[in-house]
């Protein structure tokens, strides 16, 4: 919403034009950190600062806040950015001088509570992943936009386990925009539709009144469709640690993409992290999750965790024909004790059970461990999940309704047995 008022911006001569340039750089910095700020917002901010004046720092803070922040979860990022950026009047020079040590020190002082994204955004001089050196002139380009296609394809097929930190950052930004199309199922509600097969008498009568009762034209309705709920059980034990963090990014994207997603993490015990994943800001969300979970990267007790899920949660979250995604490598500390019965119970109480296993990426994978053998007979579908391409594949699996039970697993097992 840019108002094209007759007097143009550059006549804002506070601080000899330095301030307006600074505000512009501040806005770029926020944009690089992921806030949706376009040039229109910058102009608004200049107008606002002009209207309020810069009598004191607090007013200045809230003026910029009013313009740049339009969602609750952006406040924290704005707050940090503001204090880092405006604390040091020379910061602009520094930013232009490609990250002098002083700025590094500045960032360091902020210490652990500073958002990683903000730190990256402030360090604009550092070449970004997938970008050649000397890309100074496109400082305002976001990390994501700088992904070239070839990079993206490479990342798609690269194993999560073998990625460098920079590549992981890229993968995360790709995941962030991923959504998960999932099949729809008819509900018991109706909507007005010309394709329907049932008479909608209420609509019919209202139409009839329009013509004064001369013509009774039958209106029809059909069933509404909506996604079934999605329940994700994700293994976060030691053998899965490399994947589970990436998967959490994926789950965060999925949770914020639709309603009725429930997420549970398990290692030696089960934790429900649904509420934490609902925070819009990924950093805040993951911080909450890691605070709630106490058994990161420990052992796995799949049987026990599933037992707890079946007893405490299954009736509460599987009530409406949910699709369940089980993410685990099937390596179990308890040697699959009691796992068979629990997975069978789980399978019988949901619409579809899909198993995602990162080990499947190895061509020579055979179901040798007892845990895997216990899970195999009871899943409707299974997929590798070790890179972005496989996550995208997952969307395809979920998208077709498919029969509740299909013999794919049994066939596969038979093949393995005969081989």
């Amino acid at each position, binding site marked *: 919403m840019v108002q094209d008022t007759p007097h143009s911006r550059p006549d804002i001569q506070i601080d000899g034009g330095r301030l307006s340039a600074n505000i512009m750089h501040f806005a770029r910095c926020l944009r690089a950190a992921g806030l949706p700020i376009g040039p229109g917002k910058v102009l608004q901010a200049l107008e606002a600062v002009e209207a309020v004046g810069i009598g004191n720092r607090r007013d200045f803070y809230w003026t910029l806040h009013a313009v740049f922040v339009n969602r609750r979860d952006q406040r924290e990022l704005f707050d940090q950015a503001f204090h880092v950026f405006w604390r040091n009047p020379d910061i602009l020079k520094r930013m232009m001088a490609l990250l002098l040590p002083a700025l590094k020190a500045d960032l360091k002082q902020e210490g652990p509570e500073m958002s990683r994204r903000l730190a990256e955004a402030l360090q604009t001089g550092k070449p970004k992943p997938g970008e050649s050196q000397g890309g100074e002139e496109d400082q305002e380009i976001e990390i994501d936009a700088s992904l070239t296609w070839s990079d993206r394809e490479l990342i798609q097929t690269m194993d999560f386990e073998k990625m460098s930190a920079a590549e992981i950052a890229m993968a995360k930004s790709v995941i962030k925009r991923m959504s998960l199309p999932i099949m729809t199922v008819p509900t018991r*509600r109706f909507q007005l539709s010309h394709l329907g097969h049932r008479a909608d008498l209420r609509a019919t009568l209202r139409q009839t009144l329009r013509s*004064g*009762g001369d013509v009774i034209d039958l209106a029809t309705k059909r069933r509404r469709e909506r996604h079934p709920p999605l329940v994700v059980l994700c293994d976060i034990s030691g053998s899965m640690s490399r994947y589970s963090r990436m998967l959490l990014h994926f789950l965060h994207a999925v949770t914020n993409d639709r309603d009725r997603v429930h997420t549970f993490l398990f290692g030696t015990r089960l934790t429900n992290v649904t509420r934490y994943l609902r925070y819009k800001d990924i950093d805040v969300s993951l911080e909450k999750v890691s605070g709630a979970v106490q058994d990161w990267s420990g052992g796995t007790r799949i049987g026990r965790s599933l037992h707890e899920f079946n007893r405490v949660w299954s009736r509460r979250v599987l009530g409406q024909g949910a699709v369940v995604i089980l993410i685990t490598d099937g390596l179990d500390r308890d040697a699959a004790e009691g796992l068979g019965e629990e997975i069978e119970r789980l399978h019988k109480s949901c619409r579809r059970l899909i198993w995602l296993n990162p080990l499947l990426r190895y061509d020579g994978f055979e179901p040798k461990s007892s845990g895997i053998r216990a899970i195999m007979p009871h899943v409707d579908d299974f997929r590798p999940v070790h890179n972005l391409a496989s996550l995208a594949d997952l969307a395809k699996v979920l998208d077709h309704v498919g029969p509740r039970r299909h013999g794919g697993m049994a066939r596969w097992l038979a093949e393995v047995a005969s081989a």
Partner: protein
Amino acid sequence: MTNPLPASVDETLELLQRGDYIAERSLATALYLALKLNRPLFLEGEAGTGKTEIAKVLSATLGRRLVRLQCYEGLDVASAVYEWNYARQMIEIRLAEATGEKSRENLGGDIFSPEFLIKRPLLQALESDAAGPPVLLIDELDRTDEPFEAYLLEVLSDFQITIPEIGTIKAEQPPTVIITSNRTREIHDALKRRCFYHWVDYPDAAREQDILRVKAPNVPEHLSRQVVGFVQRLRGMDLFKLPGVAETLDWAQALTQLDRLELDPETINDTLGTLLKYQDDIAKIQGSEANRILTQVKAELSAAHSA
């Protein structure tokens, strides 16, 4: 006959007792507050712990009308609030044509008048009668879907319903609302916030004994003690579906019908289906496990007896 509302927690307990309902004090407190402050009471708990019964007892003892809305998936306004009587409306239109009534405005006003309205539970609950405002029981709310829950939120906040063709209908006196849920899905916080919440738990041994005495007076004392002891032990075990109070009553009645005066392993095995409703659970308890529990229960009872 209509009775005044209870004036204290003790009176609420008495009121429920008059209706043969043995309540925990915590539940009576929540109910008293709900009545006093005119807020809905949200009861959540496992199946068979007496959630629905409260509303029935309340309407009986207060002498108020009970309006029950049984929820199910896909419940919509037409079956929960109101519906027009389409057949009569159609006939009315044809009659108007036959008598030469051609004015559209009049016709619209005519066929959307209250006499063509079919009232469903929520609308009925807004109507007071001589006995006072009715008791509205919204049963198993967790079976509905979120859109209906959102609609309900609106109705429960100001007890008025808007029908586009007629206008807004407002309750003179808001009904007493009891909402129950079996937790097959989490109810939205917004709705819970407007209610007093109470988790209805399984009763302890003494209270279950009292319930048996009141609800199944024909069951011999000795048998009922054993039954309660056995069921209490079962609830401490790791079963998929624990037996509720309703199951205890069923079992005690069944044993009495079979002319048993005492529990023995064979009888337990034969009648386990009245207590446990999952094959896995029955397989777990049947035989030696049931025997072990029974021996324990008998030992406890005789120890308590001799003390």
